[in-house]
């Protein structure tokens, strides 16, 4: 720093010397020396500027005592002669200068401290602003994240609340956060559902399974994550549910995330399908048995008929043989019903007005149903026609009516109701395998005792009955089932103990333009048993059937040859001098069956007359045989008169 009144010169004024080696900067910045002629002159000169002085005034005059400190401070060596003056001035100046110097030093320190403090403040402010900005950004990010989370939660809630499946968390054995669908399905409110352990809502028979799998899953063990079970709704009705469950962590603890779907209809349809398949299987089995049984009945009935002819009148033998005949008739009837159930008795269908058949049959029912059972009909005036066998339709109504009577021992109401129905494919269809289309519906409802679920599952099973032994054959509803299925229709039953029973029968309807035929066909007239002299070849693998036919025909005057197989028949057919006039050919034979044998015979001799006899009363099969060249068909067991009549018709060239 430069001071005013500087008087530094290259060489000090006379009498003064600069101390060797000292800084010239110091002289300039720390102190200055004023050379004056006298003290008075110096004081005069400095009067106006005394306040600005930061140096020492040294004069020539006066003896002074020189203080070494002064020398150091002011960097001047004052010769002894001049030192005498210094004491008068130096203390004042020294002190003053010291004060000034300290003040200047303090000011500079203050400036430094202030600069440091301001820098610290700036730094802290900058950091504060930065932190504040960062905090605000973080808050904004958090708010944005919260908003995004809310949107996400709303979307999730939208999806979950409107899901067709019930969705919920299961933890600690309870349901948490159920979506509305669970309440819709169960009938319980969300509050009710979450209040109790979830096993309380499960069907008692399924609780152990569900609880066990839940516990296993929570422990990380393997458990099926998709299975079905039943829940009990608030009304007490069971519902089948399919569950999909996965293990999750919920609030830091194991839980399961569950998706429930109502599969009650599906389960029911599957049960119906299984039942239908079972019935098909049973029908196939029953049909097979019936066929074989028919052959046996053929032999018994035929021999009994022949024996009856030879038994003396009024004899005990005749009576006994008569009993055999009655028994075989009843057995045949049973077999026929079994075949009807197994749909091997093909209906003879024609366009029918179901309402007319119902009205006709109800009038018959009224004769066998007690008066305390009130019969009502509610028949659709615009009911479409069906293609049906009137006899079999009558049998349906009679069987159902009889069952309803038995279910109302104290009386009640039996309702027959008809209507048109359009079935569309999908979950809503009444039975699993129904084809979509137009149907006619017959409902038979009673207000009887109803059936338990266990019995309901078996009512169409052959020989199943809840009645006492001997009180029923157990074939009534099986027959109804067989007839309905034979008509291409479907039957289902709803019943609850104490709530009556309702049978619902769906029969395919005809187009509305379909007209009914006029009147009924006239019955065929009875005729005497005819005979003849022709040669007949009987082909049947069953010895008794073959022998019986031989007897019947020989009694009628024919010459009868017998073959036990298709191969045997061909040998005889080809070896015989002249062909037989007629071949009676069993259809179901091992090896070369009847169909092939017929073809071979016609190949050899196209005009050969062949009467096909079979226990399989399938109209289509018979029709096919006729088309294959057979002259006629007779079902087993046949009566001797039927056989003789048919043989004669064919030999005479009359269609049989």
């Amino acid at each position, binding site marked *: 720093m430069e001071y005013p009144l500087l008087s530094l010169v290259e060489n000090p004024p006379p009498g003064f010397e600069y101390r060797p080696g000292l*800084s010239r900067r*110091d002289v300039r910045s720390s102190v200055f020396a004023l050379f004056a002629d006298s003290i008075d002159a110096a004081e005069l000169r400095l009067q106006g500027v005394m306040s600005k002085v930061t140096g020492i005034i040294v004069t020539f005059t006066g003896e002074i005592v020189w203080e070494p400190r002064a020398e150091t401070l002011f960097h001047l060596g004052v010769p002894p002669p001049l030192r005498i003056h210094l004491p008068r001035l130096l203390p004042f100046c020294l002190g003053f200068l010291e004060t000034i110097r300290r003040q200047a030093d303090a000011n*500079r320190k203050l400036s*430094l401290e202030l600069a440091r403090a301001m820098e610290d403040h700036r*730094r802290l402010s900058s950091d504060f602003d*930065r932190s504040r900005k*960062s905090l605000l950004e973080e808050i904004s990010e958090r708010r944005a994240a919260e908003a995004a989370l809310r949107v996400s939660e709303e979307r999730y809630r939208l999806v979950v609340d409107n899901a067709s499946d019930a969705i919920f968390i299961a933890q600690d054995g309870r349901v948490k956060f159920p979506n509305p669908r669970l309440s819709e399905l169960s009938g319980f409110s969300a509050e009710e559902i979450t209040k109790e352990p979830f096993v309380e809502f499960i069907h008692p028979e399924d609780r152990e399974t569900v609880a066990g799998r839940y516990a296993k899953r929570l422990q990380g063990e393997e458990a099926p994550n998709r299975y079905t079970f039943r829940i009990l709704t608030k009304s007490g009705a069971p519902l089948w549910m399919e569950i999909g469950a996965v293990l999750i962590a919920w609030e830091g603890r194991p839980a399961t995330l569950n998706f429930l779907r109502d599969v009650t209809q599906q389960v029911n349809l599957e049960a119906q399908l299984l039942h239908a398949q079972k019935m098909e299987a049973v029908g196939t089995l029953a049909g097979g048995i019936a066929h074989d049984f028919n052959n046996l009945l053929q032999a018994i009935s035929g021999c009994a008929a022949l024996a009856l002819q030879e038994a003396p009148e009024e004899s005990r033998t005749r009576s006994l043989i008569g009993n055999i005949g009655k028994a075989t008739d009843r057995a045949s009837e049973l077999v026929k019903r079994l075949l009807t159930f197994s749909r091997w008795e093909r209906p003879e269908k024609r366009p029918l007005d179901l309402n007319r058949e119902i009205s006709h049959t109800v009038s018959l029912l009224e004769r066998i149903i007690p008066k305390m059972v009130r019969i009502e009909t509610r028949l659709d005036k615009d009911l479409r026609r069906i293609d049906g066998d009137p006899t079999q339709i009558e049998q349906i109504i009679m069987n159902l009516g009889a069952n309803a009577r038995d279910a109302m021992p104290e009386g009640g109401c039996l309702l027959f109701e008809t209507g048109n129905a359009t079935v569309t494919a999908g979950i809503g269809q009444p039975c699993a395998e129904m084809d979509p289309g137009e149907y006619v519906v017959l409902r038979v409802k009673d207000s009887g005792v109803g059936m338990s679920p266990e019995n309901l599952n078996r009512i169409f099973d052959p020989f199943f009955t809840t009645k006492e032994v001997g009180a029923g054959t157990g074939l009534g509803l099986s027959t109804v089932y067989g007839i309905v299925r034979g008509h291409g229709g479907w039957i289902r039953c709803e019943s609850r103990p104490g709530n009556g029973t309702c049978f619902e029968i769906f029969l395919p309807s005809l187009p509305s333009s379909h007209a009914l035929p006029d009147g009924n066909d006239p019955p065929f007239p009875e005729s005497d048993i005819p005979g003849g002299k022709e040669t007949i070849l009987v082909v049947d693998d069953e010895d008794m059937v073959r022998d019986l036919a031989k007897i019947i025909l020989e009694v009628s005057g024919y010459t009868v040859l017998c073959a036990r197989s298709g191969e045997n028949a061909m040998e005889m057919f080809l070896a015989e001098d002249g062909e037989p006039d007629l071949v009676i050919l069993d259809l179901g034979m091992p090896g070369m069956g009847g169909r092939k044998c017929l073809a071979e015979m016609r190949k050899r001799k196209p005009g050969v007359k062949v009467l096909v006899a079979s226990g399989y009363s399938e109209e289509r099969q018979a029709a096919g045989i006729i088309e294959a060249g057979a002259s006629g068909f007779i079902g087993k067991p046949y009566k001797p008169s039927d056989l003789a009549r048919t043989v004669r018709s064919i030999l005479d060239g009359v269609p049989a």
Partner: protein
Amino acid sequence: MRYKSASSTSTDAYCAGAEIGGSLREILPEVVLLFASISYEQNFAELFEGIRDGLDGRETLIFGGTGDGIYETSQAAHYGVCALGMNSQGKIRWAAASAKGVGADSFSAARACALAALSSAGGAANFAFVLADGAKADGSGIAAGIESVIRVPFFGGLTGDDRKFTRSRILLNGQELEDAVSILVASGELPYSVTAASGWTPIGAPGNIEESESSTIRIIDGMSAQAFMKEQLGKPLGEADLGIVPLAAYSEAGDEYFFLRTPSHMDPETGAITTFGSIDTGTRVRVCTATRKDVLEGVRKSLEDVNDGKFVPAAALIISCAGRKWLLNNTGEEEIAPVLTAFGKKIPLVGFPSFGEISPFRKPDHTYTRTFFHNVTFVICLLGG
């Protein structure tokens, strides 16, 4: 050995120097360790002149540097100058050397400097004190360069300024040097012990440095260095955290002996941080914090470790990271007080707030680990004789 300390807070460099010199003149020092605040940077020549004048022209080896203040027996201040005069009465051979270019290659410069110092000392030394320009040098490189030459435990620090991290000076025999390293070596009977401690505690989760270049750390655990520190601290790294909030870096010496690295600069664009001292890629790091209590606990630990009782301490030399006094928010007097309490209120004590510290750790068996470059660490050297 004779030791005397002196200090002056006069803002006039010459006066301050004259005060120092005048105070030390009575022991006729052979060496003066000199530490001054950067506030004298316009007038270091006058400071030297004042000291020389104060010592009455006596030829003395003056060795020192700048820091963010001074520590001396009588005071700790943000601005001023302090010095420790040492006189071995000819029993110790002192030598000093310097080398430039620490900014370009700290290792090579330090190595060259150490070789020159040893050469001046006659080829051997049993004491070495190093100072390097804190604005330019890589402390790790400095320590490594010296360690490649000098086999005795050595210590020192990085010079600094008044928390601006822009410049500093090495003061050596009338010269003020930048971008330089200097070493003072002694050969002869000079009992001493030295150690370091910080008091900082790792708090964050460990991360691995995936990308670094010299002192600049770019990526830690897949994110920028600043982002990593922000995640661990819970707030962004601020200017006020520079030099204070370090990363603990674990070395092969074991988890007990970690060294610290505090940021000196932040790059807002890349998120990189530059630390006082290089740190290698692959180093495992953790963010550290400390309270005032922790800082002083570091001092207490160092005092425990440094005094082995093998000699009577006659003087103390302190290199304490400036970040410690910034955290303490004072001039550093709280760190000096325990030393004076431990060794006597009149013990000649000098030191400075540095921008990095160089020191080994003193083990319980009184041997030394290798020398590390530290941040936010308190290094104390006790001198005897």
